[in-house]
């Protein structure tokens, strides 16, 4: 079971001239000389040097590579802000049904009624969960949903003849928020966080000027805290005529408990790959549907999935669900076709499996698990070195600061994270949110058992004990992983981003 040196070869290094996996179907039409069909000057001069390998080699290569990954089905993965919950296997099965997986996106809607109905029902469910009446499934991920949201904001203001220039984001915001703001042509204005971890209302009021188009907020925030002043915040934002945007990355804390729409948000994005269990795939695919209020609706991307009410004169019943392109105020498309349908199938299956009670249970247990883990860490003495950034009960995740640990044990948050790898646990998110020094953001999710949380707490305590004895151990970690610490700085200085052939 030990790794062999051979494990490290790339697929290109395994290539040998003449090997192959692919066998082409026979040419069954009269063959015409290539130069007649494609003049030489349009043809490539040198071949693409793809690897030459047999099928067993490809299978073994990628199987071995897979073993160099840590994954959710192997162990605990409390990566804060990422909602690494169990990915039910049923979802892969239903998404693979040929009626879903082999459906061409340009199929006539009459011949894709199942797909359109599924999308419509998913819109409906997301609308209910968000507490907002309209949904577009189009965006491909959270940050794409953000972009949609800010572009909607722009269209909304422009439609009213207003040109606003700024978007507010808390200093605790995820990086995609300010990046999105710039991409959508606005200037970012940062709003501070108060000593309890909430939006600093004073600062917000000061910055809430009438050239502000929008406030983007995550609630619970990236600190894992619910904004108790959310109603005031909404009032301040709406009073200046701006929109209130909900970054839904943390929706897992509140499903069925409270709703962004009821809090006053105009636009919400969902991360179906977080709260709704689309597997993360090592960095996608995901989907970032958005839900919006009535006033934003006219601007939604096109096409929109609609249900046509059967008209009195018995209009075509085969077109009950349709794609509506006739949206004159729409901001337009954000991508090709109708969105990441394969993801919709999975998330829809999830919602159907759990129903209302199940979704609420998800959030309750997510919050219970986080608070329990926090309590357990306290009981283990871990918080002495890694105090909670804010002393209050958290939602589905919480932030510790490794600053005292760094000071007193001479190990950094990074070292702690790396040492966890040797214990078969994926580290939490580290150094985010930026406003907490040596931050450790821990999100256990609802699908973990109490035993797993207990073991994690004990492991952290053990690492701290070990560091008290000998900090060098953590500083040199990890030791048992396929590679040890990698020199990222050197890699970025002179980047090698492809194999030299």
């Amino acid at each position, binding site marked *: 079971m030990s790794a062999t040196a051979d494990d490290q070869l*790339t697929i290109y290094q395994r290539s040998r001239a003449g090997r192959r*996996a692919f066998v082409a179907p026979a040419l069954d039409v009269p063959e015409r000389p290539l130069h007649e069909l494609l003049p030489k000057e349009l043809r490539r001069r040198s*071949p693409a040097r*793809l690897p030459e*390998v047999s099928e067993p080699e*490809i299978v073994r290569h990628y199987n071995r*590579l*897979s073993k*160099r990954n*840590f994954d959710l089905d192997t162990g605990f993965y409390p990566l804060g802000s990422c909602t690494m919950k169990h*990915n039910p296997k049923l979802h892969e099965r*239903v998404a693979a*049904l040929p*009626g879903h*997986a082999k459906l*061409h996106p*340009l*199929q006539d809607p009459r011949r*894709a*009624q*199942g797909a359109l109905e599924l999308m419509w029902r998913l819109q409906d469910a997301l609308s209910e*969960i968000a507490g907002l009446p309209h949904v577009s499934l189009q965006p*491909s*991920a959270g940050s794409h949903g*953000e*972009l949609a949201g800010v*572009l909607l904001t*722009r269209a909304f203001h422009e439609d009213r003849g207003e040109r606003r220039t700024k978007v507010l984001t808390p200093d605790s915001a995820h*990086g*995609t928020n300010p990046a*999105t703001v*710039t991409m*959508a042509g606005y200037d970012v204005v940062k709003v501070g966080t108060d000593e309890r971890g909430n939006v600093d209302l004073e600062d917000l009021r000061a910055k809430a000027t009438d050239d502000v188009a929008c406030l983007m907020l995550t609630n619970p925030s990236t600190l894992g805290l619910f*904004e108790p002043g959310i*109603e005031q915040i909404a009032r301040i934002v709406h009073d200046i005529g701006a929109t209130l945007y909900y970054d839904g990355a943390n929706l897992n804390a509140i499903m069925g408990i*409270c709703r962004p729409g009821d809090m006053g948000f105009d636009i919400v994005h969902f991360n179906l790959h977080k709260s709704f269990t689309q597997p*993360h*795939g*090592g*960095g996608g695919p995901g989907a970032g549907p958005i839900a919006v209020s009535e006033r934003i609706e006219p601007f939604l991307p096109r096409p929109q999935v609609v249900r046509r009410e059967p008209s009195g004169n018995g209009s075509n019943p085969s077109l009950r669900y349709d794609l509506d392109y006739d949206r004159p105020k729409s901001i337009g*498309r*954000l991508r090709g*076709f109708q969105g*990441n*349908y*394969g993801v919709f199938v999975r998330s829809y299956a999830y919602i159907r499996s759990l129903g209302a009670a199940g979704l609420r249970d998800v959030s309750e247990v997510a919050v219970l698990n986080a608070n*329990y883990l926090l*309590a357990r860490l306290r*009981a283990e003495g871990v918080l002495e070195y890694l105090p909670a950034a804010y002393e209050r009960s958290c939602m589905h995740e919480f932030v510790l600061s490794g600053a005292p640990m760094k000071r007193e044990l001479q190990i950094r948050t990074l070292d702690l994270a790396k040492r966890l790898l040797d214990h078969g646990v994926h*580290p939490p998110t580290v150094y985010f949110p930026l406003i907490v020094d040596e931050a450790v953001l821990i999100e256990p999710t*609802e699908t*973990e058992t*109490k035993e797993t949380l207990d073991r994690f707490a004990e492991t952290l305590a053990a690492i701290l004990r070990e560091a008290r004895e000998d900090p060098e151990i953590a500083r040199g970690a990890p030791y048992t992983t*396929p590679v*040890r*610490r*990698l020199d990222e700085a050197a890699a*970025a200085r002179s980047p090698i*981003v492809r*194999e030299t052939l």
Partner: protein
Amino acid sequence: MSRYTAATDDDRTEMLRAIGVDSIEALFEDIPQQLRLGRALALDAGLSEQEVYAELRELAARNVSTEDELSFLGAGMYDSYVPALIDSITSRSEFLTPYTPYQPEVSQGGLQAMFEYQTAISELTGLPVSNASVYEGPSAVAAAGYIAKHSNGRRRFVVSRGVHPHSRETLRTLARGYGMEVVEAPLNAGTTELSGLDHDVSAVIVQQPNFLGAVEDVAALADAAHAAGALAICACDPIPLALLATPGECGVDIAVGEGQTLGNRLDFGGPSFGFFATTQELIRRIPGRIAGEAVDLDGKRGFVLTLQTREQHIRREKATSNICTAQALNALAGVIYLSWLGRHGIVELAELILQRTVYARDRLRALDGVRALHQRPVIREFALELDVPVDRVVARCLEQGVNPGYPLAHDYEEHPEGLLVAVTEQRSRADIDRLAEVLSGAIAAEKRAVRGAVA
């Protein structure tokens, strides 16, 4: 309902005791009472696994998939064969479930696969740098525009009318945000006609083959762009790149494209992946993740996410893109697919498709009532023009289990009876012959119907 959660009643009691509260409710104290929902969500009750399966199967059964009809639909996504080893590998939890590889020591599998993917895209496009994926083809076009804007600060994109309508629209949507004007360059005899490029033009954007299936002279277009000091951006279909002059050879600055045909399913339009390749000069402007080589403490070769200072989580409002989650698993399928094809296989596949496409075009253009829309070389798709209403002809074909292609009218009012026909390696000569027969019958029937109506 608790199949995915493990907290038993005993667990809950014990955990609440450890927390020091006496109900789960108490943990939500920060949520103002008046904001609590106070009722159950209005969603149907949860179902058992078998019931969910049955429901999803029933929905699937109401879609006509490419297994249920003889389909010549393409126009950006193609019914190409996905080899079984891709499912087998990508369904492994080790690839399916991890997050973006933030901890490289336990993510070498995913990172190395990205590096291998980047190499393959670089080889295909003839450009030295590829990122690890963007969302899909059309948004990749828009992302390329954003880079162009930042690299030369000019204010206008010239986009060929041969670029996929979804790409053009996506570009417009996003350009409106980042403040760029978009103008279209017309098609003439099937290919892009550029004229009057001035120094406001940030980038010229073309597609190869273009939406009507025509092979463009990309080198000439790129030269024209460069002559005006603009960047040349080309959206390409990856399989034809096995035969066609590469973007790199043509002097293109940014090559993007839709990766679906590389081992990904149709999935009614997604998830697939977009690829993004560029020159060494633009490497620090590229959007999204890039895997790079690194060495570990023991001097062992490994891989990391590199050039992260371009990215939103570091650079925030100054990032080159807001993209975070991209399409890693789909790109993995892409590199497995390309390794499966291999150096010779990809050429054989492209040639097979080319030969069948030419056969199909010749076969169909010879039918009564059918004209080729242009005479340019084609490679996997071609456009026809019919004498009779295309929608009605298509409807007649569908009745016989043949989906003859995509009517152009929706996107090209100048071709009201245009039909775009795609051929993949899964459509045999016999299939093409059947299309010819059914299409010809449908046109004849339609002509009769028209005559009948007139008479």
